[in-house]
C-alpha cells in the first residue's frame, strides 16, 4: 500500500463517477439545454481529465509506487465470500485514465461539430459519457468481477454506438455482430474469471481481488491448471475484445458507427481493454509458458495478417480498423514475450495517434461525404490542417524515428529480441514478423496518404447511395469542393498530433532516468515477477545477466536503451515501404491498383481470409437457423416422443417448420399421453358393447383370470 496516498489518488473514484453522473444528467435534461447536453458531457470529462492528469502526475512522480487499493463490500455472495466494489490505483490505472479521458475529451469536443444537427445528438452524448464511465470503471476496478461488469458495459455502449444509425439494416447487423462476437469472447472471460476465483477459494474471502490473485499466483498457491485454464479463457475474452484473430471480424464492421466513436472506442480505448486486462494480470500469466506462448502466437498472427488486410481496402476507416487490429496484435504479442512495459507503452502511444488518424479520417469524410480513398485525392490543398495532422499520425503509426510510435514499437521488437535470446522461439517471431509487419504498415499508410492527399481531387460521387451511407451527416446544400473542417475538429487534431509526436518521449531512451514510462507503470510486483519456466529455455543471452539466470529470471524489461542497429533497420524498412508506395501511388490512383493485382493473395485478402464468411456460415447460420430448429425438433420428436410413444411421435416427423414441430410438443408430453389415452380409450370402449351377454362372458372370463392369478400369486 502506498503510504499516505494523496487526496487526488483517494478521489480517483470520481474519475469514472463524473461521466456516469453526466450520462444520467444528459439523459434527463440534455434536450432542454442550449448545447443539447454536450456541455454537461464536456464539463464532466474535462473534470475527469483534470483529475486524471493530477493522478498521473502523482503516480508518475512517486518513486517506487505501490498500488493504492480501496474497497468496500458490494454484496455477500454466499458461503462467506464477498464481492468488493473498489478501486486499484497504480501507474497502469493512471496511464489508462489519462489516455481514456484525454481521447474522450478530444472526441467530445470534436463531436460537437461533427455530429451537429443529428436527431439523436443528446442521446449520442449520453452514450459517450456512459461509455467513458464504463471504460473507466473497468480500469479502476480492483477485482476481476468488477472488471467484468465494466467490460460488459463497455460492450453494450459499443453496441449502442455502432448501431447509432439504426435505421439501416447493415448498421444493425454490424452492432449485433460486434456485440455477439465480443460476447462470445466474454464467455471465456467470465469462465476464466470464475476458474481463477475458484483457485482462490480457501485463500481469501474476496476471491476476485486482483492483487490477492497476483500474490497467490506468484507465491505458487494457484495450481498450474487453474492458471493455464483461467488465463487462457480470460485471454479468449481479450481476443474478442481486442480484435485478435480470429475474433477480429467485428472490428471493421464496427466502423458503421460515427467516426468519432470509432476513434474513441475502436481505436483508443475499448479495444485496448483486453491488453489492459492482460497487463493487469501479467504476473499471473507469466507463471505459465503455455499461456505466454499462446498469447504471443495469437499476437504475432494478428499483427501480420491483420496488417495485410489493410492493403486492399478502399474505405479509409477500414484501413484504419485493420491497422488497429495489427497494432493491437503488436501489443498482445509484446505481452506474450514478456514485454509488459513495451505493450502498454504502445497502447499509450497508439491511443493518441490512432485517435488522431480516425478523427482526421472523420474530417476528410466530413468534407467529401465518402469513406473511400478513391473518392479523395489532392486533399492537402483543401484541408491543410487535416493534412499535416494526418501526416503526423501516419508517421507515428509507421514508426518513423522519433515519433511516439517509433519508440513504442521498437520496445516491442526489443522485447521480442530479448525473449528470443532466452531461447524462446516466440520472441524471434515477434521480432522478425514485427519488422515485416512494420513494412506492411508503412506501405499501406503511405498508400493511403498518397491517394488521399496527392494527385487530383477525384471528387465525391454525387449519388449518395454509392456510399455505405452510414457515416454521413445529412448536410443541406451541395459542396462543390471539399473544404477544411471547423476549429472544433481541427483543434483536437492538432492536440493529438502534438501528443503523437511527443508522447513517446517519456518512454524513450531520452528518459532513461526515472521517472519514465517504465517506472510509472511498473509496480514492485511487476518488477519482481519471474518466469518459473524460463530456466528450461535459458541460454546465454543479452539482457539477462548471468546472475539472473537459474530457475527463474527477472522480468525482461528495464530502462529504455538505444539500439542503433534497430534504428537503422527501421529506417530502412520505412524508406523501402514509402518508396514502394510512391512508385505505385505517387502519381495518384493508378487505373489498376497493384494491390488488387496480386492474384490469389488479393482474393484471399479481399475475402478477409474467409473469416467473416466462415463465421456467418459456420456459426451464425447453424446456430440461429438450424440448431434452433433442431432444438425444437428434439423437443418434439425425442422428448415428447419418448413420453407419447413411438406411434404418435413419429407421425409427422417430416414437418420441420417450427409450428409443425411445436405441435409435436403438443402431441407429446401430457397431451401425448392423453392422445394415447384417447387412442386406448377408443379401443377400450368397444368392450362396452352394450350386449349384456358379452358383459357376462367378460365378467366370468375375468373371474377365471383372477382365480388363476390368485393361484399363481400363491
Amino acid at each position: 500500500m502506498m503510504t499516505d496516498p494523496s487526496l487526488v489518488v483517494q478521489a480517483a473514484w470520481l474519475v469514472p463517477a463524473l461521466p456516469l453522473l453526466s450520462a444520467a444528467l444528459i439523459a434527463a435534461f440534455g434536450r432542454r439545454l442550449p448545447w443539447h447536453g454536450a456541455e454537461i458531457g464536456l464539463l464532466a470529462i474535462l473534470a475527469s481529465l483534470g483529475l486524471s492528469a493530477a493522478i498521473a502526475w502523482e503516480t508518475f512522480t512517486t518513486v517506487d509506487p505501490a498500488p493504492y487499493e480501496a474497497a468496500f463490500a458490494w454484496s455477500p455472495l454466499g458461503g462467506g465470500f464477498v464481492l468488493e466494489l473498489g478501486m486499484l490505483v497504480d501507474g497502469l490505472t493512471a496511464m489508462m485514465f489519462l489516455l481514456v479521458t484525454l481521447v474522450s475529451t478530444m472526441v467530445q469536443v470534436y463531436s460537437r461539430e461533427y455530429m451537429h444537427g443529428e436527431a439523436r445528438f443528446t442521446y449520442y452524448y449520453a452514450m459517450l459519457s456512459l461509455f467513458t464511465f464504463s471504460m473507466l470503471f473497468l480500469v479502476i476496478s480492483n477485482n476481476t468481477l468488477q472488471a467484468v461488469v465494466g467490460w460488459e458495459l463497455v460492450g453494450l455502449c459499443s453496441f449502442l454506438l455502432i448501431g447509432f444509425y439504426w435505421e439501416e439494416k447493415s448498421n444493425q447487423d454490424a452492432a449485433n455482430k460486434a456485440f455477439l462476437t465480443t460476447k462470445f469472447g466474454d464467455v471465456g472471460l467470465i469462465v476464466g474469471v470464475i476458474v481463477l476465483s475458484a483457485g482462490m477459494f480457501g485463500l481469501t474471502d474476496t476471491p476476485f481481488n486482483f492483487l490477492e490473485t497476483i500474490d497467490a499466483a506468484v507465491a505458487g498457491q494457484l495450481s498450474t491448471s487453474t492458471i493455464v485454464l483461467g488465463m487462457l479463457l480470460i485471454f479468449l475474452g481479450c481476443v474478442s475484445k481486442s480484435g485478435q484473430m480470429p475474433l477480429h471480424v467485428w472490428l471493421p464492421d464496427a466502423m458503421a458507427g460515427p467516426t468519432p466513436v470509432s476513434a474513441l472506442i475502436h481505436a483508443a480505448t475499448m479495444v485496448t481493454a483486453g491488453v489492459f486486462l492482460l497487463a493487469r494480470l501479467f504476473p499471473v500469466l507469466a507463471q505459465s509458458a503455455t499461456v505466454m506462448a499462446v498469447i504471443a502466437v495469437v499476437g504475432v498472427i494478428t499483427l501480420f495478417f491483420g496488417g495485410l488486410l489493410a492493403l486492399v481496402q478502399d474505405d479509409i476507416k477500414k484501413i484504419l480498423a485493420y491497422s488497429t487490429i495489427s497494432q493491437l496484435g503488436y501489443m498482445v504479442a509484446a505481452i506474450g514475450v514478456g514485454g509488459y512495459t513495451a505493450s502498454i507503452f504502445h497502447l499509450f502511444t497508439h491511443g493518441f495517434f490512432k485517435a488522431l488518424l480516425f478523427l482526421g479520417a472523420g474530417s476528410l469524410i466530413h468534407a467529401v461525404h465518402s469513406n473511400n480513398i478513391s473518392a479523395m485525392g489532392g486533399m492537402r490543398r483543401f484541408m491543410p490542417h487535416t493534412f499535416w495532422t494526418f501526416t503526423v499520425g501516419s508517421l507515428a503509426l509507421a514508426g518513423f524515428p522519433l515519433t511516439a510510435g517509433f519508440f513504442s514499437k521498437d520496445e516491442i521488437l526489443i522485447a521480442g529480441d530479448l525473449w528470443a535470446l532466452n531461447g524462446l522461439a516466440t520472441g524471434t517471431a515477434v521480432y522478425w514478423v514485427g519488422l515485416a509487419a512494420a513494412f506492411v504498415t508503412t506501405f499501406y499508410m503511405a498508400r493511403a496518404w498518397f491517394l488521399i492527399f496527392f494527385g487530383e481531387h477525384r471528387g465525391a460521387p454525387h449519388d449518395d447511395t454509392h456510399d455505405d451511407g452510414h457515416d454521413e451527416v445529412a448536410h443541406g446544400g451541395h459542396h462543390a469542393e471539399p473544404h477544411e473542417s471547423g476549429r472544433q475538429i481541427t483543434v483536437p487534431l492538432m492536440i493529438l498530433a502534438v501528443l503523437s509526436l511527443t508522447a513517446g518521449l517519456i518512454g524513450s531512451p531520452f528518459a532513461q532516468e526515472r521517472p519514465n514510462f517504465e517506472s510509472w507503470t511498473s509496480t514492485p510486483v511487476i518488477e519482481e515477477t519471474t518466469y518459473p519456466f524460463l530456466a528450461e529455455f535459458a541460454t546465454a543471452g543479452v539482457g539477462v545477466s548471468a546472475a539472473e539466470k537459474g530457475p527463474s529470471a527477472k522480468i525482461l524489461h528495464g530502462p529504455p536503451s538505444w539500439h542503433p542497429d534497430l534504428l537503422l533497420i527501421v529506417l530502412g524498412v520505412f524508406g523501402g515501404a514509402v518508396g514502394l508506395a510512391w512508385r505505385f501511388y505517387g502519381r495518384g490512383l493508378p487505373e489498376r491498383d497493384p494491390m488488387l493485382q496480386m492474384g490469389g493473395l488479393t482474393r484471399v485478402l479481399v475475402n478477409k481470409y474467409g473469416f467473416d464468411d466462415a463465421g456467418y456460415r459456420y456459426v451464425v447460420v447453424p446456430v440461429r437457423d438450424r440448431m434452433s430448429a433442431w432444438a425444437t425438433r428434439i423437443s418434439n420428436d425425442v422428448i415428447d416422443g419418448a413420453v407419447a410413444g413411438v406411434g404418435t411421435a413419429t407421425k409427422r416427423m417430416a414437418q420441420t417448420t417450427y409450428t409443425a414441430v411445436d405441435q409435436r410438443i403438443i402431441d407429446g408430453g401430457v397431451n401425448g399421453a392423453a392422445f394415447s389415452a384417447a387412442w386406448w380409450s377408443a379401443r377400450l370402449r368397444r368392450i362396452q358393447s352394450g350386449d349384456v351377454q358379452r358383459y357376462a362372458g367378460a365378467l366370468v372370463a375375468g373371474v377365471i383370470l383372477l382365480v388363476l392369478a390368485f393361484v399363481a400369486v400363491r
Partner: protein
Amino acid sequence: MAIDFLAVGPEIALAVTALVVLAADLSLRGDAKQLVNPLAAVGTLVALLLVARLWGEERTTFGGTFVVDTFALTFKALFLVVLLAVLGISWRFFAEGRYFQGEYYFLLVTAFIGMLLMPSARDLLVLFVALETVSVPAFVMVGLRKRDLYSSEAALKFFLIGVLSVALMLLGMSFVYGFTGATGLDAVAGAIGGLVAADTVEPLLLAAVLLVVVGFGFKISAVPFHFWAPDTYAGAPMPVTAMLAVASKAAGFAGLAIVSFIAFQPLAGVWAPILGAVAVITMTVGNLGALQQRDLIRLLAFSSVAQAGYILLPFGVARGGTGALDVAVNTAAFRSVLLYLVAYAVMNIGAFGVAIGVSRRTGLRAIGDYAGLGARSPLLAGAMTVFLLSLGGAPLTVGLWAKFAILEALTVDVTTFGLVLAGALVINSVIAFFYYLKVIRLMWMVEPAADAPALQPGFNLSVVVAGLAAVTLLLGVLPGLVTDTTSVVTFAAVR
C-alpha cells in the same frame, strides 16, 4: 338370548319408515302422494338420531352376527345422510315425472336397510342377505321409468350382471363354508388363520376368496364387474343413479372391507396384490372410458368406476400379518377407504344433483348441453365446478384429502408395490382431470347456445346441491372434521 334392539334401532326405524311409506302411498291420492318424501325424510332423521345415540358404543347382538362400532356407525351415518340427499334430489324428479312415487320411496328405504346392515354384518349369510336387500329393490328402481326403453334395458343389464355376480359370490361362500365350517367372519378368519399357519391353504380356498370378492366387485363396479355401470347409470332415473353410484357402492365397499379385513385378513398376502392390480386396471379403464363420453351421466358413471379404483387401492397394500406395522398399514388402509367414501359421497351426489337440476325439465344431458352453464346458472355451474374439481382432487376440496388419505395409506410403509400403486393413482388423477376440465371449460369458457332452455333446479335440489358444495369446500379447508372422526375407527374396532 336377548336381542339388543337399540343396536338395530336405525334399521328398525328405516323398516318402520318403509312400511309407513308404503301404507301412506296406498292411502294418498294425486299430488298428495308427494308427501311420502318428507315422511321418508322424517324416518331417516329418526334413524340418524338413533345412530347419533349409539355413537361411541360398541354393541354385539344376534349371536355375534351383528356388531355396532364406530366403523359401522360412520357408515350408517353416511348412508342416512346420503339417503336424505337422495330424497332431496328425488322429490321434484319423481313428483313431476309421475313415476311410482310411493313404491319408489318404499324401495329406496328398503335398499337402505340393506346398506345399514352391511357394515354391521359379521356373517357371510347376513352379508349376502344385506347385499340382496340392497340389490333387489335397486333392480326395480332402475326400471321405474317403465315406458322408457333405456330404463328397461338398464334394469335388465343391471339385474343379469347382478344376479350372475351374486351367484359367483355364493359359490365362493359355499366353498369358504366348506373349508371353515362356519359363516361367521371371525370364525372364518380363525379357521383360515389356522390353515395359513399350518400352510395347508388349498388353491380352491383362494379361488373361493376371490369369488366372494366378486359380489362386492359388482357392487363397487370394479373391472371386470363394471360393465353394467355405464349403461345402467345412463338408463336409470337420475336420483337412482346417484344412489347406485354412491350409496350402493359405499355399501359394497363396506362389505368388501369387512370381508377382506376380517374374514380373509390372514390371506391378505394373496388377495392384496390382486386387488391392487384390479384397482389400477379399474381406475384406468374408468378414466379412459370417461374420456370418450359425450353424455354427462355416462361420464360420471365411468368416473365412478375410476373412483372405485382409487378406493380399492388401499386394499392393495393390506397385510396378512399382525405385527405393529401390519396393523398400522391395515388401519390406514381401512380409514382411507372410509374417508374416501365420505368424500366421494358428498361430491358425487352433488354432481348428480346438478345433472338432475340441468336435465330434469329439459332432458338435456349431453356434455355439450353444459356449454355456458356458468352464464345461465352460475350457482349450478359453480357447484358443479366444485364437485368436479373435488372428484379430481383439487386443493381446498374434500377430494384432495380423500386422495391424500389413499396416498397416505399407500406410503405408511414404503414398498415398491405401494409406490407403483401411488404412481398409477397419480397418472390416473391427471387423466381424470382431462374430462373434468373438459366439462368445467364448457361451463365457463363457452357461450351458451342461443336456444338453451331456462333452468329451474327447484328449492330442495338447490339446497342439497348448495349444501354439498359447501361441505365439499368446508371439508377441503378443515378436513379434520372427517379425519378426526374416522381416526376413531381403528383396525382393532373392526376386528
